[in-house]
């Protein structure tokens, strides 16, 4: 059994007990434990089930590369699936549960899949769920969805109570990885005075060095790390961050790092995660290397672990993986594990070394001296045991397996297939790799680095991440990369001679199919050596195809352990060299990061900006039913107690027609255009003539883009000879202002015109209805008579002592004044209008009433009657298109053949025969079908409302030859697609066609 050793453990504090639960079972660990080390200390070797076959899975690794030990952590609102036990620091009260099994971890029905594994080969999904097509929706998809995914998704109603934030940091040098290479590189960079940020994903500095041992400049690696840290901590230009993982490298020195602030201390104040958004002049990746598993039969049984991980558990956390551990390796480094185990008083029955060396290397000799049995040229034939390791059967590595030489009882197997540099960050933004034949690894190709904004190398790999294997190589590499101000020589490490590694991609090398079917490459996704070979046989020769066909490396660990072994297997099956097969693409993030960190401040009230007018507070307090219009909030209606939304809208329309309505129109865009060429400029922007507008007057105008399509409309007021005020739609202010500036800056830069977006400088209140003039007269201060202020005129003055600009314009067909007032006084004016307006039965109204009022008058609305494919001519707005102008934006496009087509759909009014309201967007159908078997159509509804004024449904729509078909009845499809509504084509102006009501 795995257990806690009586002594040792450099990271744990035995004086501090921490209790936690695993699948409801109460267990204890120590401060400094990871969840993984604490589970192992409690003999919890079985920690989960694999994805496809539900095979029992144990902890394999000790860090970010762990494929198996994925847990659901926390409860309720804080529950989070798929968290790696190896990177989860233990805290008192932690709750964890294992995943992907039913009914329990120990007894899992899904493990039947394993018995059927020969029926679930690579590409199973592609082969099985093909035909018949009709099965997809109701049979295959539900099945796949049910079996897909590892952990359980958090409850849909759960709300993460933690906070998250972003932080933007600009540095000269970002160093990723706090091992010897990273610390040394950061120190050297810091000595030049550069702004340096050093991030380390774990809670500890030094990387593997303190566990792996060795000496630097006569100090132990652990002491040397402490010295480096002390040096760095006093440098003001260097920032150190542990528990901070660089997740991705992007263009121009942009990098993301994921800082876990309170995962280990959930009761601490402050944000849980912080996403660092870093701009670095250069990025140094000192990300180390990851050990490769060895592919042998049964290498997935709980108890089989990476040799380096076994060493970590023994040295860092004083955890014994079992009393007897067999070491199997193709390199010298794993001997360190054997030595560590022996030093901890544990048995190492044998080291199985696939190599046959002419003479003992120093590490080998040391192991022999400690009395460890070394079997060279030997391999594991298969691992014995069902739910955990009971022993290994050994054979000759040169053979095919099956010829068992000896069986050795053990509780754990420590395997090492060599080391792969962590090249993810190097590769994210285009860095290329080179296959190093002697070191048997892909390492960064220094001649093909990712490049930055000046074409310069942007990422530099250093240390093990760059292929360095010994301490001295690491130190030399850091000195090469960062010579420092005085080209400080590299520190000297103690002697560390190692014999070369021998590549082993299958064990034994000629393993039979029976063995290959049990030799796992990808533990999480259940991909075996035989699966990759099958993919190659079936023609999936590209590594990217083989990956998708087999799902190798597609699990949450993204193949950190499996990719190199997988592609070596593929290259073997294809008879190609490894570099010819190449690697799959590395993509961010390095390990998964939380959605909360990605969202940062964009949640709850700051999810997105909500724009408020100066009247917002009053509306909010008085029953506004809000609707978003762009980022603005506008009231759909202002409900009275007990009223339905529909009743409120009907009341608002009726009262505005009969008495007095108030509309908060502050959201309308307002852009000042001024200069000697302002008139000429607006003549280009609008389809009609603006330069002839007289000061004091207003004119409605249409704006098109160069494609000829309508993009905006609004009233332009001429302020003086050189100055115009252009009103835009609510959503349009920023876009139209940008549109104006684009043309002024990039096309007509010699025209003398300045613009200013003054939308928010003014609150705007529309005073609408037969009693509109009366309320203004009652407030007093301005002459608002028809003679002084005729329709489409504007004037300035004071209303009730408040300076205002008054526009006599109407979007409702009623007598109407729009009052612009400084935003800081808008609320005062609004209150005044309400108070004085009481005697005139004033009622505020919302956007739906606004829509009905305008539709009754046949006024178009950008975004309803237009959709980016509609030209003014479609809407019968020819009167607003100047025939005199030689040019305006969109004019040439409106001459294109499709725009002058006879049968374009054109605007009409529609009245249902039964008085009901047409569904918005409904199509007018006609006989026959198109090439896709869809019913032919001849028009569609663009706006539809119930008009309380007319007591019936009214609509506007675009219909082929519409204006020529007044009186004709056509049919519109309901949303069920079969039943129809009949409607008569009518004039789009339903109410007061002669404009008598607005012209008083």
């Amino acid at each position, binding site marked *: 059994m795995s257990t806690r050793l009586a002594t040792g453990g450099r990271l744990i504090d035995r004086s501090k007990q921490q209790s936690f639960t695993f699948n409801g079972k109460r267990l204890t660990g120590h401060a400094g434990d990871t969840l993984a080390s604490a589970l192992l200390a409690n003999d919890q070797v079985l920690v989960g089930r694999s994805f496809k076959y539900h095979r029992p899975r144990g902890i394999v690794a000790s860090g970010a590369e762990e494929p198996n030990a994925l847990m659901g952590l926390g409860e309720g609102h804080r529950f989070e699936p798929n968290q790696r036990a190896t990177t989860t620091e233990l805290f008192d009260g932690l709750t964890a549960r294992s995943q992907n099994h039913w009914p329990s971890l120990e007894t899992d029905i899904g493990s039947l899949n394993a018995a059927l594994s020969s029926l679930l080969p690579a590409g199973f999904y592609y082969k099985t769920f093909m035909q018949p097509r009709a099965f997809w929706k109701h049979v295959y998809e539900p099945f796949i969805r049910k079996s897909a995914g590892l952990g359980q998704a958090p409850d849909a109603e759960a709300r993460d109570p933690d*906070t998250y*934030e*972003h*932080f*933007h*940091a*600009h540095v000269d040098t970002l160093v990723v990885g706090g091992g010897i290479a990273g610390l040394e590189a950061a120190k050297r960079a810091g000595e030049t005075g550069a*702004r340096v940020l050093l991030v380390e994903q774990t809670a500890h500095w030094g990387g593997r060095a303190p566990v792996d041992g060795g000496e630097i400049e006569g100090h132990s690696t652990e002491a040397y790390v402490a010295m480096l840290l002390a040096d760095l901590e006093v440098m003001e230009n260097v*920032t150190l961050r542990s528990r901070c993982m660089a997740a991705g490298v992007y263009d121009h020195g942009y990098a993301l790092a994921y800082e876990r602030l309170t995962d280990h201390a959930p009761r*601490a*104040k*402050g*944000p849980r995660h*912080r996403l660092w*958004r870093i*701009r670095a002049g250069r990025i140094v990746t000192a990300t180390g290397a990851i050990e490769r598993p060895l592919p042998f039969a049964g290498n997935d049984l709980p108890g089989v672990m990476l040799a380096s991980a076994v060493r970590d558990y023994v040295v860092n956390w004083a955890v014994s993986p079992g009393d007897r551990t067999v070491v199997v390796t193709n390199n010298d480094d794993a001997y360190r594990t054997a030595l560590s185990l022996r030093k901890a008083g544990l048995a190492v029955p044998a080291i199985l070394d696939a190599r046959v060396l002419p003479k003992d290397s120093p590490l080998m000799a040391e192991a022999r001296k400690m009395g460890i049995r070394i079997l060279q040229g030997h391999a594991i034939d298969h691992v014995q045991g069902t739910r955990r390791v009971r022993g290994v059967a050994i054979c000759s590595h040169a053979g095919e397996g099956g010829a068992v030489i000896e069986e050795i009882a053990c509780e754990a197997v420590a395997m090492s297939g060599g080391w792969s540099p962590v090249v993810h960050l190097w590769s994210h933004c285009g860095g290329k790799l080179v296959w190093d034949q002697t070191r048997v690894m892909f390492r960064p190709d220094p001649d093909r680095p990712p490049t930055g904004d000046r074409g310069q190398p942007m990422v530099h790999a250093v240390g093990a991440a760059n292929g360095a294997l010994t301490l001295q190589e690491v130190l030399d590499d850091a000195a090469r990369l960062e010579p420092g101000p005085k080209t400080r020589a590299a520190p000297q490490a103690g002697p560390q001679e190692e014999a070369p590694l021998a590549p082993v991609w299958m064990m034994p090398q000629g393993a039979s199919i029976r063995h290959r079917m049990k030799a796992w490459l990808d533990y999480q996704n259940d991909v075996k050596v035989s699966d990759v070979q099958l993919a190659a046989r079936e023609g999936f020769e590209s590594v990217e195809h083989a990956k998708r066909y087999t799902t190798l490396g597609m699990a949450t660990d993204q193949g950190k352990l499996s990719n190199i072994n997988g592609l070596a297997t593929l290259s073997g099956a294809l008879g190609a060299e490894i570099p010819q097969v190449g690697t799959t693409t590395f993509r961010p993030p390095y390990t998964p990061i939380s959605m909360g960190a990605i969202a940062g*401040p*964009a949640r709850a*009230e*700051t999810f*997105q*900006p*909500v*724009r*408020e*007018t*100066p009247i917002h507070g009053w509306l909010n307090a008085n029953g506004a039913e809000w609707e978003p219009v762009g*980022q*603005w909030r506008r009231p759909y209606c202002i409900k009275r107690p007990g009223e339905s939304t529909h009743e409120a809208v009907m009341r608002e329309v009726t009262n505005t027609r009969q008495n007095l309505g108030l509309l908060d129109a502050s959201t309308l865009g307002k852009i*000042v255009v*001024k*200069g*000697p060429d302002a008139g000429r400029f607006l003549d280009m922007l609008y389809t009609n003539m603006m330069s002839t507008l007289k000061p004091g007057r207003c004119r409605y105008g249409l704006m098109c883009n160069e494609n000829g399509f309508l993009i905006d409309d609004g009233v332009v007021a001429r302020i003086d000879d050189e100055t115009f005020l252009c009103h835009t739609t609510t959503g349009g202010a920023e876009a139209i202002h940008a549109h104006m500036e684009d043309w002024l800056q990039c096309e007509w830069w010699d025209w*003398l015109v*300045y*613009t*200013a977006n*003054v*939308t*928010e*400088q*003014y609150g705007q209140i529309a005073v609408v209805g037969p009693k509109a003039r009366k309320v203004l007269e*009652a*407030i*007093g*201060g301005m002459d608002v008579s028809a003679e002084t202020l005729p329709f489409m005129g504007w004037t300035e003055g*004071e209303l*009730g*002592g*408040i300076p205002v600009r008054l526009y006599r314009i109407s979007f409702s067909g009623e007598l109407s004044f729009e009052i612009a007032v*400084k*935003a*800081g*006084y808008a*609320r*005062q004016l609004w209150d*005044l209008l309400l108070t*004085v307006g009481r005697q005139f039965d004033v009622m505020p109204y919302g956007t739906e009433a606004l829509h009905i009022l305008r539709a009754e008058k046949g006024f178009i609305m950008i975004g309803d009657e237009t959709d980016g494919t509609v030209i003014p001519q479609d809407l019968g707005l020819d009167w607003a298109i100047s025939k005199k102008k030689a040019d305006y934006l969109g004019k040439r496009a409106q001459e294109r053949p499709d725009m002058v087509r006879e049968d374009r759909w054109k605007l009409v009014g529609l009245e249902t025969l039964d008085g009901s309201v047409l569904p918005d967007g409904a199509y007018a159908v006609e006989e026959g079908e198109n090439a896709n078997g869809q019913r032919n159509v001849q028009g569609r509804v663009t706006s539809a409302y119930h008009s309380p004024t007319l007591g019936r449904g009214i609509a506007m729509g675009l219909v082929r030859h519409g204006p020529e078909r007044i009186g004709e009845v056509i049919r519109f499809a309901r949303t069920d697609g079969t039943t129809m509504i009949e409607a008569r084509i009518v004039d789009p102006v339903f109410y007061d066609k002669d404009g008598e009501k607005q012209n008083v």
Partner: protein
Amino acid sequence: MSEALTQPVTALGGARFDGLISVREMPAQGMISLRGDLALPPVKNAATGVAGFDMPARRAAQCAGQRGLLWMAPDEVLVLCPYDEVPAAVASMEKLLFKFHSLVTDVSDARAMFELRGGGLRDVLAKLTPADMSATALPPGELRRSRLAQVPAAFWLESEARAQVICYRSVARYVFDLLKSAARPGSAVGFH
């Protein structure tokens, strides 16, 4: 009917938050946008006459109290003066610039202004803006127009312990909430 004009209402009525730093919405501030050829003497005179400061160099923010000049763009400065003086200031500027192509706009009510006080305000802003908040990139007296999360904003430091932020009035609530969360106790970064 005539009433004496009361004080203008700011977007948040002087909202305030104390955390890592203090965040306060400032009272109504006069702001006049002046667009023109900034090298032209009458344009300079119009700006400096009202503000009482020299023409700012590129990106400079020169202010004290309620007066100042902010460089907004190669052809735009923002003139700061007491809110009540704006109508007269606009009139005098327009008079000076009568013969010159320019645009003077009162934008006092279109903006909200926040004051940040306390150490660590660079870190608080760096949570929200992609701009480099280091002292070398943004020394006191220099304006940066950038974004705070999803909206445009302009900000400058008067000293390491005091900064001002200007944003559009309609998003004052959003910006205040952002600053509040960025200044939440327990969230100090200690980078700048």
